[in-house]
């Protein structure tokens, strides 16, 4: 049997909101294989973003375990988790989260700015990615000079700069009109097909899901099938 690339086993996540204990995840099991195009869908507050953060080594479960290539992320140090995020995972955040003082190319280079890769190679890689996502003419533009769709393309290129095995995208079409949203989703499917990159997309919007996709429906912190 094929070893899962990423696996969540009986994951619980609780946190304090003032004096109230919020149970965001209540025993979630998820298995993701290399090359999968995965959707985590559910209404607002269902725990899907929390699950994405835990799968991407940004957060840790209160109980249960997350395995990347069979290795438990709980055993890694803060620095090792940073290296997992730098080398193996790419994030596309809700609201793009680009740095406004940097142009498109510099934003794309950001994840590897502190790596050993020399600046010339990194710049060339960022420009190539921006061309691949259709932003050849926007390389030196700052986020405030770009449309919503263009910003999301920059965010996608940034997630690809480290040539990750998995891209985790939180509501990537949430702030886009339907046409632009479809374009972005199409771009992600092309990357998945051509590069074999695994995609985990968190959304409450089910219109982009196809029959071939793996879907986890989440409600009140639990996976429902």
């Amino acid at each position, binding site marked *: 049997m094929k070893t899962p690339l990423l696996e969540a086993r009986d994951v619980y996540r609780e946190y304090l909101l003032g004096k109230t204990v919020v149970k965001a995840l209540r025993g979630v099991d998820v298995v993701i294989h290399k090359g999968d195009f995965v959707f985590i869908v559910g209404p607002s507050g269902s725990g899907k973003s929390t699950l994405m*953060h835990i799968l991407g080594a940004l957060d840790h479960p209160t109980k249960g375990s997350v395995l990347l290539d069979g290795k438990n992320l709980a055993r890694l140090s803060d620095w090792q988790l*940073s290296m997992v995020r730098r080398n193996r995972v790419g994030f596309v955040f809700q609201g793009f989260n680009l740095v406004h003082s940097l142009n498109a190319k510099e934003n794309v280079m950001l994840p590897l700015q502190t790596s050993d890769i020399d600046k010339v190679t990194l710049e060339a890689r960022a420009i190539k990615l921006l061309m691949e996502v259709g932003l050849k003419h926007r390389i030196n533009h700052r986020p405030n000079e770009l449309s919503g769709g263009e910003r999301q393309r920059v965010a996608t290129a*940034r997630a690809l700069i480290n040539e990750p095995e998995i891209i985790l995208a939180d509501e990537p079409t949430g702030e886009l009109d339907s046409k632009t949203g479809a374009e972005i989703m199409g771009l992600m499917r092309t990357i998945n097909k051509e590069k074999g990159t695994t995609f985990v997309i968190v959304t409450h919007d089910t219109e982009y899901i196809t029959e071939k996709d793996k879907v986890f429906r989440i409600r009140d912190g639990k996976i429902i099938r």
Partner: protein
Amino acid sequence: MALVIGVVAIITMVSVSDGIRNSMVEAISGMNGIIVWEKDALDLPFSCLPMSYEKKLEAIPGVKVVFPEVYGLVNTIEGEKPKGGSMTMGMAVLAGFDPVKEQQRVGSIYGVEVEKGRNLQPGDKYVAVIGHQLADEYDKRVGSIMKVNGKRFKVIGILEESQYAGSAVVVPIDIARELAGLDSDTVNSFTVQTYNPSDQEGVSKIIEARLDDVDAMSTQAMLKDLEEVMVIFDWAFILLSSISLLIAGIGIINTMLMSVMDRQKEIGVLKAVGWSSEDVLKLVLYESALIGVFGGLLGCIAGGLVVIGIENVVEFGLTLSWTTILGAFAFAVFAGLVGGVYPAWKISRIDPIQAIRME
């Protein structure tokens, strides 16, 4: 701003301190002998000793030559109070030396050579050797006539550039007594030179033992005293520098804290995409060191201009050295780095998820 002010303060303080030290060392080193003056007198012009002490001093073993000296303030030059110009500041010092004895002096008068013309010679009367500042201010050359305290003097020599003797008027001792209102049996002080300079300490003690009403101090003892005073200066400087460092450091902590708190979301994104806490720490420290570099550069330029400005106005002998400038610059970079440590540590520990969710 606090950093720039701190650097300016350090450069100015060190330049003043170095200037005082150099000027005093120049003056004392040039004396080359033992100064003997009336016990507990405030300063040489206030001291009064009988000429008969000259023989008593000469009789002390080890003494080679004794120079009687008269000092006073010049009341008028060219019929008016000395000019309050940038160099002399309205002060001119009268010094009377014995032209005959001057032929035996080892070294020059107070370490300052006669640059133009000649020194006093036996038989000289109403002649003067003047400091370079007075010569510049009154436009005097060798051969010029200069009226000092109502008397006409022929300028026979001009002293080389010196902080200490720039405003001196050196005349024959008899004439100096006449100008200072001293009778012919009185002097202000004696300079005693020994055969062997290393005997100065011992001879000073013998002088004070034999003559009850005098103080005697050798050049070496004066330099030692000066060093003790300068140590106090140095400690005051260290204290003020530390206060400057503290204020500059607090200023940088405040600036950097505001800067990183404004960028919490941005830094959260950096951590989310793979920057480690150490990377963030280095970034903020780099930024604060950069503040130190720019603050230091601005402070060094401003401090240099302040020192040059003060020196142009009062010619106080401020000494601006590369060591001072580099030291002040290093201080600024250090303050920048130290000031950045807490903000860097604080922001490097930020939870990326909470930071990203911030509006």
